[in-house]
């Protein structure tokens, strides 16, 4: 990750120019956000059941406060408002969260292979979810399903454990954090595998959760997870400049007066919290958190002030579209979304990679 040094050294004292830069970035943010909203609207109007885009829009607008757009058939209304709208919104929020968390993880670990599941979020969530699925507590009749909270708790426990194990003398080395994360993850993974084989009448339910997806999305799931995902993104953004500095050597960043430990704890904590919320309502969707930040970096450069929000928008659009494909390949039937994210995402990513390689060869 090569970063212009002068900009980094200018960081610490001067505040005014930085503010101007934030403002200069506003049009980019607005454009990305608008594109994401457009993708979401398209996804809501697209589905197995053909519903005219105008009807879709009319139903959506009808749910705004103080607006009435007349009556629609109960089925159409239910499909748009109770099924598609929360499904698209949840896919967008989860995609955004995985992508900005991936960018944040890559920034903190300064490792291109870092992704939001690196230090135990996914496998911890899997343990929580599995325990609930096999337990007699798994009562789908409950008004609030205990599954997302359990997955959330599992995710945070695993990350906390990995963090605690890696911490020595008030410092957490990134290398030891990765190692303890991998160890905690494999412990959790084998536990889940064991439970799945032991309680094999529930294997399919566990597997379905692990593979992830949005078929059971609801406004309730949006409501319980969105606060974490939105707050996580909003609170990580102010760390963007410091993440830029951290792309230098950690020791150099320290010499520049950056409190590296606090950034690590803050950024990883926020990203893990948000990812835990995302995973708890969607299961384990791979690829988004790893690839989207890289794609954004290749197109728009490595500045975290741009990388974080654009990753969020790009991740949201990507997962919304992947979900559209997942429910359209074989109309009426679901295809696991993880399969789709890898199938569409990988070739696109390889295309970007080759284009970048060719460009750098051309320069050389």
């Amino acid at each position, binding site marked *: 990750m090569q970063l212009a040094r002068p900009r980094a050294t200018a960081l610490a004292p001067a505040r005014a120019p930085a503010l101007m830069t934030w403002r200069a970035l506003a049009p980019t943010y607005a454009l990305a956000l608008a594109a994401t909203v457009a993708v979401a609207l398209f996804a809501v109007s697209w589905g197995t059941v053909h519903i005219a885009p105008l009807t879709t829009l009319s139903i959506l607008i009808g749910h705004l406060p103080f607006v009435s757009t007349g009556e629609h058939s109960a089925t159409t209304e239910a499909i748009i408002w109770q099924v*598609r709208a929360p499904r698209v919104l949840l896919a967008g929020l989860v995609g955004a969260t995985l992508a900005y968390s991936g960018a944040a993880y890559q920034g903190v670990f300064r490792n291109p292979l870092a992704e939001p599941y690196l230090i135990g979020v996914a496998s911890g969530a899997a343990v929580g979810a599995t325990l609930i699925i096999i337990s007699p507590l798994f009562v789908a009749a409950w008004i609030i399903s205990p599954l997302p909270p359990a997955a959330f708790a599992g995710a945070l426990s695993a990350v906390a454990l990995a963090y605690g194990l890696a911490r020595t003398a008030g410092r957490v080395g990134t290398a030891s954090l990765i190692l303890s994360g991998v160890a905690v993850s494999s412990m959790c993974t084998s536990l889940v595998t064991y439970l799945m084989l032991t309680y094999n009448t529930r294997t399919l339910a566990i597997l379905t959760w692990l593979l992830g997806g949005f078929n059971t999305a609801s406004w309730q799931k949006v409501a319980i997870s969105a606060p974490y995902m939105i707050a996580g993104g909003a609170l990580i953004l102010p760390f963007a400049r410091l993440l830029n500095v951290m792309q230098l050597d950690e020791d150099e960043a320290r010499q520049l007066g950056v409190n590296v430990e606090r950034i690590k704890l803050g950024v990883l904590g926020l990203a893990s919290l948000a990812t835990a919320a995302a995973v708890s309502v969607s299961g384990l969707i791979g690829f988004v958190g790893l690839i989207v930040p890289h794609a954004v970096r290749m197109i728009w450069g490595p500045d975290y002030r741009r990388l974080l929000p654009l990753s969020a928008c790009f991740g949201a659009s990507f997962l919304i579209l992947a979900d559209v494909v997942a429910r359209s390949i074989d109309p009426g039937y679901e295809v696991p979304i993880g399969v789709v994210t890898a199938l569409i995402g990988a070739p696109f990513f390889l295309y970007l990679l080759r284009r970048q390689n060719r460009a750098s060869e051309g320069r050389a």
Partner: protein
Amino acid sequence: MTHNWTSRLVTLLAAGMLLSAACSSGAKSNSKVPPAFSDNPTTISGISTVAPYPVAVARSDGKPLSIAQAPARIVSLSPGATEIIYAIGAEATLAAVDKNADSPDAAKSFPTKVDAFEPNIEAIAALKPDLVIVASDTGGIVAKLDELKIPVFYVDIDKSVKTIDDIFVQISLLGRVTGKTEKADALVASLGERRKKVELAVRDIVDSSATKVYHELDETFYSASAGTFVGDIYRILHMKNIAGDGGGVAYPQLTQEAILAANPGLIVLADESFGVTVDSVKARPGWSAIDAVKNGQILGVDPSIVSRPGPRIIDALEAIAKGAYPDRFK
């Protein structure tokens, strides 16, 4: 990490359990069965006159199996087969059953159990079986048993048991294998009789007035397609199964949108043991637009009856028939 998960778990999935959403072959009926046999299972008296042994069995992998004499130490890795063996009075031949066997009670409390989901070849071989019944070739167990020259009665449920007739064929086959031919034929005849009664009671229902049915296997909307013995129940009842042919998958996952759009008149829950209830279905957002929910046509059926290829499938047929058409079955 996810890749680890996915690959490892997909292998498991493919390894196949009853509800495995893995591939299913396109063949509609069981070609290994003589047509007369599957077309008219209530009159199979011809079978009993056949010389008892050797019994030839066509395995799901195409390899032949010839059983020279009545087995005395059967290890059953199939809960469905275990149920059948008890129903035809051949339980004395059992040396071990699979740990998911829960019916009848005697099978549930059977002293020796093996794990069909992760079969341990050493544990099975140590039981010195003279026949192992396998319903799903998990972890290459069939090849391992073949290597040890242990006879394997391998009938893959997803591939070879796609109709209630196929279940009847299994009962007759296991009767011949265990030397309980007459008992098995009598069982098939009485089950066939009960099915006939249901068929007669619904025979005047025509396609245009057919009830649309959604059969729920779990809370993430897995269902049973027409190409399964569960789907066969709805064919007999002249219902329109909204899972259709499953897009080529035996047990497909439906989109919630497709269920709402299909607007089923009857919802059958085979997932009550996982906590899904009539009330929880009613409370699902948007589901109040479905006719079955509006009219209270939601029916819970014991999953161990409706999801297992054994004699109790007729209990499931009768229960669903009674629930769907109470005035026709009094």
